[in-house]
């Protein structure tokens, strides 16, 4: 689907902490949090552009990113529980240096 995605399943990533107006599909609660890529969904038109009647191009790679609930909320009810969020490429940065090993 995605010929050359920036990240692959297993890669640790951090969601950018940005605060700007517009049709942002990155939930506030996950900004600044670190997880890992679970799946590469493929390339999709950018909703931040589509929402304003533009063409949404260039397409952005969409990732399924997994988080340990304890890394997001500071606690987790079930030890194996996961929180999974679909996040576009331009909202992610590599967390390879700050994190070694996951799951």
């Amino acid at each position, binding site marked *: 689907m995605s010929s050359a995605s920036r990240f692959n399943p297993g890669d640790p990533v951090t969601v950018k902490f940005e605060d700007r107006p517009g049709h942002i*599909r990155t*939930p506030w609660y996950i900004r600044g949090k670190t997880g890992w890529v679970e799946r590469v*969904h493929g390339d999709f038109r950018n*909703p931040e552009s589509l929402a304003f009647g533009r063409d949404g191009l260039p397409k952005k790679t969409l990732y399924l990113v997994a988080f340990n609930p304890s890394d997001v909320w500071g606690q987790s*009810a*079930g030890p*194996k*529980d996961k929180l*999974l969020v*679909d996040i576009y490429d331009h909202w992610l940065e590599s967390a390879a240096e700050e994190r070694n090993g996951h799951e």
Partner: protein
Amino acid sequence: MNEAAKAEHGHDHPKHELSYCAKRIYAIRDLLIEKGVVSEKDIQCQIEYQEARSPANGAKLVARAWVDPDFKTRFIGDPKSACAEMGIDATAINEFVVLENTERVRHMVVCTLCSCYPRPILGRPPDWYKSFNYRRRSVVDPRGVMREFGLNLPDEVEVRVHDSTADIRYLVLPVRPKGTENWSEADLAKLVTRDSMIGVMDPLNAIPE
């Protein structure tokens, strides 16, 4: 019936007092028709299309996946073409992902940003799915939300909450209830509730006759 109003617009408006938003919607509708952007028939067709989609579509897919392992593989591998095979039009969905529940892993779907929902498969989302309460709490305390639906999960079960924030629409494939080994596909479909395909509940139990 207000014949004057009907003659003016060619269709009836409700006779009771309308709210501000309802008045605005009717005004926009009338303008779109007047300017020829859409026809009254288009609107009626769209309403019928929206109403025709219901959790029965999802139940058909799940029941087939329970009785036919090959179909299940196709349903998980390429959900849209599996839908087409069953005569269900899922082309309106950008990307469709099926999440298979097992005894060890449970999925639950929410859209914390709005109300993203696999409408071609499940129809319109229930009001609670769109409520701030569900959207806020399902990502923080999914087990607590499930308990309120009557589902108590042991700690060793992995709960995976999917916040469907983008182009993907998720459907949960629940675990087939025990004691249904000899059931027909049609009877199985009756056990598949809407809420079990959102992931907050189990399908109905098999009640011995």
